[in-house]
């Protein structure tokens, strides 16, 4: 199977033009396979995980409701989600047999996504703790412990998570990569079509540069199919549902906190938001 489609440029050069659109199906099926596999694994094979116990004096300080996502964060998340769905549908539905005039919606959604990401960058960096979402040393050490324990080998119990579980952080990493790829390439790709913002100029870059840009956009795009599928899947899994609710209502309750989070690593007070 071809991953990339090439075309002859007017100068007789073979340049990539975009991904092979069969990758839409490949990624869709891969996403589906992952979540079915994961569900089966969790249901039938996974051993319950044990974590280091939380010290009672630390636990005592934890309030009944812990703010997890500020209103701004939640708004950002849902706007981004809406944009992302709009982007995926406008991008791929016409390719899989549901033709409609998609281009304008696509770039408008792309702009919304870009704006929300810009907001998020500023908000997260200047108003929140920007490091909270990145894996730290403890995460990596604990990951080793969890892996060993999952394989039945001896290892100390891992600590509970800080604000975000490692999986969450890793997912964020991938989303950062793919998201930046699609938005950045997508931004330049707006020069290839007519928009109200600037003169259409498909010759902003050379044929080869454009070609790889389209390929990157496409790869990130189909990648997002699988990633979003996984994201939605985890969001509706019962053990993660509290987190999903927090993305709607903003907070988690004490029990959930103490079960999954380490108050030392996620320091919360009454006043914390």
């Amino acid at each position, binding site marked *: 199977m071809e991953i990339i*489609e090439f*075309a*002859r*440029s*007017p100068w*007789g050069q*073979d340049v990539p*033009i*975009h991904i092979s659109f069969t990758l839409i199906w490949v990624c869709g099926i891969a996403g589906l396979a992952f979540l079915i596999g994961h569900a089966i694994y969790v249901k039938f094979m996974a051993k319950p995980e044990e974590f280091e116990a939380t010290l009672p004096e630390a636990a005592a300080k934890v309030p009944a409701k812990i703010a997890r996502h500020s209103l701004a964060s939640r708004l950002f998340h849902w706007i981004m989600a809406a944009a992302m769905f709009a982007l995926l549908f406008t991008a791929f539905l016409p390719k899989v047999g549901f*033709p*409609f*005039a*998609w*281009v304008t919606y696509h770039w408008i959604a792309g702009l919304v996504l870009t704006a929300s990401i810009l907001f998020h960058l500023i908000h997260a960096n200047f108003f929140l703790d920007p490091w909270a979402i990145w894996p730290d040393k403890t995460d990596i050490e604990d990951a080793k412990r969890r892996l060993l324990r999952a394989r039945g080998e001896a290892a100390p119990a891992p600590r509970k998570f800080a604000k975000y579980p490692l999986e969450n952080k890793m997912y964020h990493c991938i989303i950062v990569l793919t998201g930046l790829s699609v938005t950045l390439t997508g931004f330049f790709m707006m020069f*290839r*079509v*007519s928009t109200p913002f600037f*003169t*259409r*100029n*498909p*010759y902003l870059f050379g044929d080869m540069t*454009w070609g790889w840009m*389209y390929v990157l956009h496409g790869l990130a795009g189909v990648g997002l199919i699988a990633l979003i599928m996984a994201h939605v899947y985890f969001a509706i899994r019962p053990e993660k549902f509290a987190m999903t609710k927090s993305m709607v209502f903003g907070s988690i309750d004490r029990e959930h906190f103490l079960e999954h989070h380490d108050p030392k690593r996620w320091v919360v007070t009454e006043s914390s938001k």
Partner: protein
Amino acid sequence: MAVIRDVMPAFELFQPATTDDALALLAKYGSDAWVLAGGLDSFDWLKDRIKRPKVVVDMSQASGLRGIKEMNGGLEIGAMTTLTEVVRHPLVKEHFSLLAEGAELAASPQIRNQGTIGGNVSQDTRCWYYRSGWKCYRAGGNICFADTPTAINREHAILDADRCVAVNPSDSAPALIALDAQMVIRGPGGERVVNAQDYFVGPDINIMRMTVLKPNELLTAIRIPGTWGGAKFYFEKIRDRQVWDFPLVNIAAAMKVSGGKIEQIRMAVNGVAARPLRLTAVESAVIGKPADAATGEMAGKIAIQGAVALRFNAYKIPLMRNLVKRAIGGVQEAAWKS
């Protein structure tokens, strides 16, 4: 791999005698097959070696698709009927001269002797970038070479462009839309009939095709209802050369006028968008108004609403406006005599 033009590649040829045989071949060979009607559009693609079908299904022997017959006060024209046959047919001339006028202005006498009405409405765009074999949107690529800062796009679209700015070059298509014709399509699932204006598709919906015809389908006939028979017709084609030239803009209108007032009207233009456009806004605006220059003036202005010019085709906007005006208000001066 070097490019070479002007040598037709080898292909397997079928000349089915019936539509059923042709459909069976299309079903069998799928995207490897190419349907040949008059061939005047096809041979360019084949000789340039841009399209490389393994199998060519030549419809020239399907005699059942050729000819014009009366049907419920209207006409049914077989898709393989040549343009000359359409132009010369007494019933067409008598009742639907709009179509005869449009068809007669197409290409050259020999092309009209061979080119078919089905081929004329289904022909591909003449965008010179696309026809150069450049991999643009329409060819499955990701660029429109005709709308760049250096592109020469004098003959391209002013309306309904979406990434691709190519235009539909058919002269008979707007006449058929104005006559409220229907396209009869046969496919593996049987027959379907679509209105002429819905037969064509813009780049927003399908950037790689000009019509709704699927690769496994054939246009078998065009039906013209009796509704507009003998109405007041107007056809005009503007082009650079008087032979062998595609329209820069053409217009077809059918009008029923009573007591000086427009009772009913259908109007379509081509050469301004990737599909022939029926001007419904104009139609509804002029009903009940007198068929005169003032109404034409107003109609022209409505017609060009939303038109966007590229670097070299701004002239198409006043040209379309003036043609709409003339279609309603008439031309003051005699036509060219040449």
